[in-house]
C-alpha cells in the first residue's frame, strides 16, 4: 500500500463527471450564450490579402448603413493606444540580446500582414446589419511581396514585415554545450540527420471564440465575457494591451468549449470590443465564425527542425544537435514564442542519457496567422524530433528500435536526474514503461501480423516512441484555491485554473472530498469568479492537477486545521482533544460532535490554500500499429497502446478521455491536419472544415491505455499531469509506424502530414525506383 493509495479509494477508478448534467441538457453557458440588455453587435472587416500597405479606408457608406452605431479602424486603435500586446518573451537570447517585439495595433494601421488581419470593426444594432455594413467599407491597398515560409523569411533580401525586426528575425537563442557536442560528433561512428517539419495546424476547439464587453462609465470599468483557460492570464494581457488598470477589468467565463492553448490569448478583437463598448456606452458582442477562426485564431506548431544524432558503433547516443526555426506568423502572441524557446530546452535529451546537446533556435515572422501554444506547446515537437532520430538511427544501424532505446535510457536509479540543459527529472522508470508497452502491444507477434497483411496486399508497420515532458511550473507567483463551507455542510471551491473540458469540477471535488472525507458530490467547483480575487495559473501545459489540483488538497487540510480550534470552542474542549473525520469534529473523550456545516452556521467558514510548484515530468511509451493500403495510400489504425506514467491517477475515466482526445489530435496532425497558405500569394487554402481534415468518428479505433506509475515528487499528491502526453507521444509513434511499414520498399524519411496522397506518391515512386 503506497502513500497515495487513498486517492484511488476515493474514486481513482471510474467516476461520472459532476459537470456533465448541465452540459448534456443544453444548460451550459459558453461565451456566445451571454447576452446583456441593449447590446450591440460587432463584425470585422479582415484583410483579404497577406501583405499590403493600406493606402486609404473609406467608411462613409458603412457609417450610413442601416443600424450602424460605429465604425472603427487602425486610426482609432492607435489613438486609443491599443498597439502593444503583452510579450512574455522577455529573457535574453544569444549574446544577451533581447527579442525584437513588433507592435500590433488591435486594428491594422498602415499595413496588413496576413490574410485575416483586422482592418475595421463595425458595430450595429444586429449582427446581420454589422456584416452588411462591413462589406461597404472600401479599402485601397498597395500590395507588397509576400513571404510565407519561415526559411524564405530569413533569406537575404526577403521582404521585411516590421520596421523594428530586421531580417524578420525576432529572437535567437542557443542552448547546450556547443564545444562538447562538436567534439562528440567528430568521434561518432554514425550520424543520423533529419530535416523535420512540424506542420502548422489549427487548434479548432469546437466553440468558436466570442466576446461580450460591457463598460461602466461610472466606475470606468469593463466586464469582459470571453472563453479563457484562466481569467487572470486573460486579464493580465487585456491590461497590457488596452492600457487599463487591473482593477478596472473583470473577466467572466463559465463553460469553455475546448481550448488546447488557443484560449490563453487576449486577442485584438477583445480589445477592440472594449474600445467600442466604451465609445458607444453599450455592451458590444462579437461571435467568431469558423471561417474567421481558421484565419485569425492562433495556429499551432509550425516548427521546422534540422536534427542530428551522433552514435558510437553500439548505438549509444553521444550527442544531439538541432537547428530550430519557429514560425510565429505575422505578429507575436504573448506567450507564442516562449513555448518553442523554453519547452524543447527543458526536455532536450528526452528520456535518454545523451551526454552532449546543443541547439540553436530562431523566432521568425512571416505573412501568416500568429502562432501560439497548441496542446503540448513544443513538447510534442521536441519529443517527435528525438524519437524520429532514434528510430531512423536504429534502422540505419540495424538495431531493434526497442533495444536502442534500452541502451540509452536514463536508468531508474539515476533519479532525480539533472539533465545537460539543467532540468531535474524528478522520478521515472523508462525501462518499466517500455517493457510493459511492448508486452501489451504484443510486439512479439508483429512479424506474423505483418505477413498476414502482406497476403492481403497491405503494408503493416509498428512504431514506438518513448517520451517525457515538463509539467507543473506556472508563470503566476502561486496557485490559490478558496474553500467556503455552507451551513448544510456542502463545500464550494474556487479556482483560477479553468476547465475547457478537462473535468476540473470532478477531479478537484474528488481531491477535496478525499481530504475532507466527504463525498465528491458535496463539493462544487466554481471557476472564473473574478470577485474572489484569487491568484493562480491558467489551465495549460498539463499543469492543473499539479498546481490547483494539489492546492485543493492543501486547502482542504488547511480547512480542517483552521476549523479545529473553532470546533473545540464550540465543543468546550481543548483543540488537542478534537478529532476530525468525515465532515465532523468529535471530542475525543465524549460523544460531543459538531459538523462542518453546523460550524459554518455559527460563523462563516472559509480558507484559501496556496502552493507553488516547479516542474515534474510525466512520461510514457506509445506503440502504434498501422496498415497502409498501397492502392490509395490510406492508413488505418490497427492497434494503439499507451503506457503512461502520469503519477497518481485521480480519475481513470478522465485520464483515458484525455488520452483519447490527445491521440486523436496527434493522428489528425500526422495524417491530414495542415494549415496551408499559397506560397506565392499567402492566401489561406485550408480555410474551412471542407479543406482542413480534422479527425471524424472512426478514424482512430480503440486505444489500450495503461499506467506505469512512479509518484511525482513535486506534489504531495504524487501527480504529474497528463493532458498533453497523448500528443507528445503519438506524433512519433504514428510516424515511426508509417516509416516502419514503408522503409522496406525503399521509401526515404517522410514528413507530416502523411496524407493518403503523399503516402501513395511515396510508395509509387519507391516502386518505380526499384
Amino acid at each position, binding site marked *: 500500500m503506497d502513500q497515495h493509495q487513498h486517492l484511488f479509494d476515493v474514486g481513482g477508478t471510474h467516476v461520472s463527471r459532476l459537470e456533465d448534467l448541465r452540459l448534456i441538457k443544453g444548460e451550459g453557458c459558453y461565451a456566445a450564450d451571454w447576452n446583456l440588455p441593449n447590446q450591440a453587435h460587432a463584425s470585422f472587416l479582415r484583410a483579404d490579402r497577406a501583405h499590403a500597405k493600406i493606402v486609404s479606408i473609406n467608411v462613409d457608406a458603412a457609417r450610413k448603413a442601416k443600424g450602424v452605431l460605429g465604425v472603427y479602424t487602425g486610426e482609432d486603435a492607435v489613438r486609443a493606444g491599443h498597439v502593444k500586446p503583452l510579450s512574455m518573451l522577455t529573457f535574453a537570447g544569444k549574446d544577451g540580446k533581447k527579442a525584437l517585439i513588433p507592435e500590433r495595433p488591435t486594428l491594422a494601421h498602415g499595413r496588413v500582414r496576413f490574410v485575416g488581419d483586422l482592418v475595421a470593426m463595425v458595430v450595429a444594432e444586429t449582427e446581420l446589419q454589422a456584416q452588411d455594413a462591413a*462589406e461597404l467599407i472600401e479599402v485601397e491597398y498597395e500590395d507588397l511581396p509576400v513571404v510565407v515560409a519561415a526559411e524564405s523569411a530569413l533569406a537575404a533580401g526577403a521582404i521585411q514585415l516590421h520596421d523594428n525586426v530586421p531580417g524578420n528575425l525576432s529572437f535567437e537563442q542557443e542552448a547546450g554545450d556547443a564545444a562538447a557536442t562538436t567534439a562528440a560528433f567528430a568521434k561518432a561512428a554514425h550520424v543520423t540527420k533529419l530535416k523535420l517539419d512540424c506542420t502548422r495546424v489549427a487548434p479548432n476547439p469546437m466553440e468558436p471564440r466570442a466576446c461580450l464587453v460591457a463598460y461602466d462609465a461610472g466606475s470606468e470599468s469593463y466586464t469582459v465575457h470571453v472563453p479563457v483557460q484562466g481569467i487572470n492570464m486573460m486579464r493580465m494581457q487585456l491590461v497590457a494591451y488596452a492600457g487599463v488598470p487591473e482593477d478596472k477589468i473583470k473577466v467572466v467565463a463559465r463553460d469553455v468549449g475546448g481550448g488546447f492553448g488557443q484560449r490563453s490569448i487576449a486577442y485584438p478583437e477583445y480589445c477592440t470590443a472594449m474600445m467600442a463598448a466604451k465609445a458607444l456606452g453599450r455592451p458590444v458582442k462579437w461571435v467568431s465564425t469558423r471561417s474567421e477562426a481558421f484565419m485569425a485564431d492562433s495556429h499551432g506548431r509550425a516548427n521546422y527542425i534540422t536534427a542530428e544524432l551522433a552514435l558510437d558503433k553500439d548505438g549509444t547516443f553521444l550527442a544531439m544537435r538541432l537547428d530550430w526555426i519557429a514560425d510565429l506568423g505575422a505578429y507575436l502572441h504573448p506567450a507564442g514564442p516562449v513555448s518553442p524557446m523554453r519547452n524543447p530546452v527543458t526536455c532536450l535529451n528526452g528520456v535518454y542519457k545523451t551526454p552532449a546537446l546543443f541547439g540553436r533556435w530562431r523566432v521568425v515572422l512571416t505573412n501568416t496567422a500568429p502562432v501560439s501554444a497548441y496542446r503540448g506547446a513544443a513538447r510534442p515537437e521536441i519529443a517527435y524530433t528525438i524519437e524520429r532520430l532514434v528510430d531512423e538511427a536504429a534502422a540505419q544501424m540495424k538495431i531493434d528500435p526497442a533495444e536502442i532505446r534500452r541502451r540509452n535510457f536514463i536508468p531508474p536509479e539515476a533519479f532525480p536526474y539533472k539533465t545537460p540543459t539543467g532540468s531535474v527529472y524528478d522520478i521515472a522508470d523508462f525501462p518499466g514503461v517500455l517493457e510493459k508497452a511492448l508486452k501489451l502491444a504484443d510486439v512479439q507477434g508483429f512479424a506474423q501480423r505483418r505477413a498476414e497483411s502482406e497476403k492481403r496486399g497491405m503494408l503493416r508497420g509498428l512504431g514506438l516512441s518513448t517520451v517525457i515532458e515538463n509539467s507543473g511550473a506556472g508563470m503566476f507567483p502561486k496557485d490559490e484555491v478558496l474553500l467556503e463551507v455552507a451551513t448544510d455542510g456542502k463545500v464550494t471551491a474556487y479556482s483560477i485554473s479553468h476547465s475547457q473540458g478537462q473535468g476540473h469540477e470532478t477531479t478537484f471535488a474528488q481531491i477535496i472530498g478525499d481530504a475532507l472525507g466527504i463525498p465528491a458530490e458535496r463539493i462544487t467547483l466554481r471557476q472564473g469568479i473574478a470577485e474572489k480575487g484569487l491568484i493562480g495559473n491558467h489551465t495549460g501545459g498539463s499543469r492543473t492537477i499539479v498546481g490547483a489540483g494539489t492546492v485543493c488538497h492543501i486547502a482542504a487540510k488547511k480547512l480542517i486545521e483552521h476549523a479545529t480550534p473553532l470546533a473545540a470552542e464550540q465543543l468546550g474542549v481543548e483543540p488537542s482533544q478534537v478529532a476530525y473525520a468525515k465532515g465532523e469534529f468529535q471530542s475525543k473523550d465524549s460523544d460531543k460532535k459538531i459538523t462542518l456545516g453546523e460550524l459554518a452556521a455559527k460563523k462563516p467558514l472559509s480558507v484559501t490554500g496556496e502552493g507553488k510548484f516547479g516542474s515534474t515530468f510525466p512520461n510514457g511509451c506509445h506503440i502504434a500499429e498501422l496498415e497502409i493500403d498501397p492502392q490509395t495510400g490510406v492508413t488505418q489504425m490497427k492497434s494503439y497502446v499507451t503506457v503512461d506514467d502520469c503519477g497518481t491517477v485521480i480519475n481513470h475515466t478522465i485520464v483515458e478521455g484525455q488520452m483519447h482526445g490527445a491521440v486523436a489530435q496527434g493522428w489528425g496532425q500526422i495524417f491530414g491536419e495542415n494549415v496551408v497558405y499559397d506560397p506565392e500569394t499567402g492566401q489561406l487554402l485550408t480555410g474551412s*472544415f471542407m479543406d482542413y481534415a480534422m479527425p471524424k468518428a472512426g478514424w482512430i479505433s480503440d486505444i489500450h491505455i495503461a499506467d506505469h506509475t512512479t509518484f511525482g515528487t513535486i506534489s504531495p499528491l504524487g501527480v504529474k499531469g497528463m493532458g498533453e502526453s497523448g500528443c507528445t507521444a503519438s506524433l512519433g509513434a504514428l510516424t515511426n509506424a508509417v516509416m516502419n511499414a514503408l522503409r522496406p520498399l525503399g521509401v526515404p524519411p517522410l514528413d507530416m502530414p502523411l*496524407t*493518403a*496522397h503523399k503516402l501513395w506518391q511515396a510508395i509509387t515512386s519507391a516502386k518505380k525506383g526499384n
Partner: protein
Amino acid sequence: MYAFQYRKASSLKEAGELLVKDADAKPMSGGMTLLPTIKARLAQPTQLIDISGLSELSGIEVKGGELIIGAATRHQQVASSKVVRDALPALADLAAHIADPQVRNRGTLGGSVANNDPAADYPAAVLGLNAKIITNKREIAADDFFQGMFATALEAGELIVRIAFPLPKKAAYAKFPHPASGYAMAGVFIAQTAAGVRVAVTGAGSGVFRWSDAEAALMKSMDPTALAKLTVATDDLNEDIHGTREYRAQLVKVMAGRAAATIAGKN
C-alpha cells in the same frame, strides 16, 4: 448572408413563372448547397423560391422498366425506400453515402442534379444509368444534361420534376471521400445493361464524365482485373492541395475496380 425574400411556391407552374420573372431569384429545394453558399456571401439572390414541398416533385415508382423519382425526394428517402432498394440498390447505396445523415434528411435528388457540383454523387448515377431528366418543359438525356462544373442544360425557369433511371441488370457505386469535406475525390458508377456497360466518374474532373476505355474493358469482362492495364487520362482531372491529377487517376481506377468487384460479386 445578404438579405433576400423567401417564397414558398404553391405550384410548379408558379415557381417557373417567378423564376422567369426575376433572373436573380433562385429555386431552393433542400438548400444544402445553396444556403451555405449564401451564408458565405458567395451568392446574392433576390428571392429564394422554395419548391421542396411541391407534390408534383414527389413520389418514387417503378414503371416501364424505369425507376422514377420525384425531384424533391430527399437523399434519406432514396436511401431507405424499399422500392429503390429492390429495383436499383446501387442508387440507394449511393444516396446513403451522400454527405452525412443531417444533410441527407434535407438534400434532394433534383437539387443535387440541378446544381451539378463536380464532386457530387448523384450525377455519376444519372450519367452512368443514362437517366432521363424530366423538367417542367421537356425531357433531357443525361448525356446532354451535364455541361461541366455547375453547368447543366437547364434554362431559366426550368426545373427538374423527376428523374427516370432505366433499370440496369446490375450496377454499383464506389466512392473515395475527401477526408475533410466528404465529397467524392473519385466516385465511379458502373451500370451493366442489355445495351452494354457505362462507367461514369464524378469528383475527379471538372464535371461528371464517362470513362470509355473502362466501359469497353468491362463489357468484355466484368472483373476488376479487366481494368489493370488501363490508365485514366489525366489531362482533364483536378489538381489541388488534396491530390495531384495522377493520384485522382489512380483513385478513379481503384474505385472502378471496387464497383466492378461488387457487380461481379467479388466483394
